[in-house]
């Protein structure tokens, strides 16, 4: 009997030793830091992916979304803005992917930038706002940001 207990204890210790070597890969978890602020209800905007981009110097990554009009504009070979376009650019700080050496994934959420276009007589009016905790405009940089966002082409998705 004592023999059996000794063996069981040995096997148990062995199993524990093997088990301990497994690193924690956060099974079943979400990327909490990267989650978008709940109050944005982003998924409910019904926007689709246009493309995504990475800024290596700033170690950020972004995904550009848009409505059908925005999608059509970024897929077209011409550069003529139309009214009724909605763009949303979501940005994160990057982090190393703990589950794959050689990959980077979204880290802390940074901001959402929205560009919308509206007809104003014969011209198209473009407006910009950004969310980093609350919605704000940014007169200093918004022209550059609008230009950047409207310059993006749709990523090819067959």
């Amino acid at each position, binding site marked *: 009997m004592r023999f059996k207990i000794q063996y069981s204890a040995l096997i148990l210790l*062995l199993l524990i030793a*093997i088990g301990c*070597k*497994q*690193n924690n*890969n*956060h*099974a*079943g*978890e*979400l*990327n909490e830091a*990267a*989650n*978008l602020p*709940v109050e944005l209800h*982003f*998924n409910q905007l019904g926007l*689709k*992916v246009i*493309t*995504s*981009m*990475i*800024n*290596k*110097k700033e170690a950020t*990554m972004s*995904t550009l979304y848009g409505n059908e009009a925005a999608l059509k504009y970024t*897929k077209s*070979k011409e550069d003529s803005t139309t009214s009724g376009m909605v763009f949303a650019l*979501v940005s994160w700080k*990057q982090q190393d*992917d703990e*589950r*794959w*050496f*050689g*990959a*980077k*994934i*979204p880290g802390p959420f940074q901001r959402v930038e929205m560009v919308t276009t509206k007809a104003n007589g014969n011209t198209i009016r473009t407006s910009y706002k950004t969310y980093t905790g609350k919605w704000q405009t940014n007169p200093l940089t918004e022209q550059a940001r609008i230009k950047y966002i409207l310059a*993006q*082409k749709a*990523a*090819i*998705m*067959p």
Partner: protein
Amino acid sequence: MNQPFYKRRTIQVLAILLICFGILQAYKPELKKEPVTADFNGPENVKAILKAACYDCHSNEPDLKWFDHLQPAYSIALADIKEGKAGLNFSEWGNMAAGDQKAKLFEILNQMTTGTMPLKSYQLLHPSANLKPAEIAIVKNYIAGMIKEHPADTALMNAADKQFNNWNEQHLKAEELPKTISGVPYQPDYKNWQVVSTTDRIDNNTMRVIFGNPIAIKAIAEHQINPWPEGTIFAKVAWDKLQDSDGNTKAGAFKQVEYMIKDSDKYKSTKGWGWARFKTMKLLPYGKNIGYATECVNCHRPVSNNDFVFTLPVKH
């Protein structure tokens, strides 16, 4: 209590076991010797580690110990070698294209760091396969040296432009949709789905968006993702990375779209997931034979405790 030696129950049982063991030894299929044609050609210190930890099952030079020659260990060893070599054979390393070699090295490293490989059962009796952190660090250092990020050359940029200019929405009928050899279908609707996450792959210079169908997105919202619910589908799209001299990177040519489709009954033999990859704008299905999904499952083994899913979902 003082029975003669040969009448003791323990002795009798042991004798029977010994006879069975002896009979088992009669069955000994031959381990076919195959030549080393294109051996792994990395640095010696890395090769020494791979030889000690991997070559028994992943090369044409298995170094079987005396106890490996005894049944039933011998049969286990033979099965492990057959399966191991089917997935990776260091003796034929040089026959792989350079890009495939690099991808394989990252896979090897990730299997090592997560303790997925070498197999635990193998390590128990083969202590040389028990990789020390310092040894894994040597392999990691070698493989990290292969990460090269540089601005896109004109060929890469031209490929992207050409694809964009020729890109027309395809409207394939259901019966025209490509399928893998095992029947896992391409799903054109992925581009209308929500996003699960994105990845920047510095190991192979691609960038990816992982889409989830409405079932997947609901599971994320409710945080019920291990296991993922039946009917979950992920679509992972990969593009070339086009980096400019400032480090700004955009999506270049479309490379492939990959799917994981959860159906525990239908895909019982491949961990409950249907696996598919469709390459280039022609959407050529990956996998020449039905066993291709084994390759998918094996690479995903480091996350077997996470329903074989690598992606850490982001709530949008």
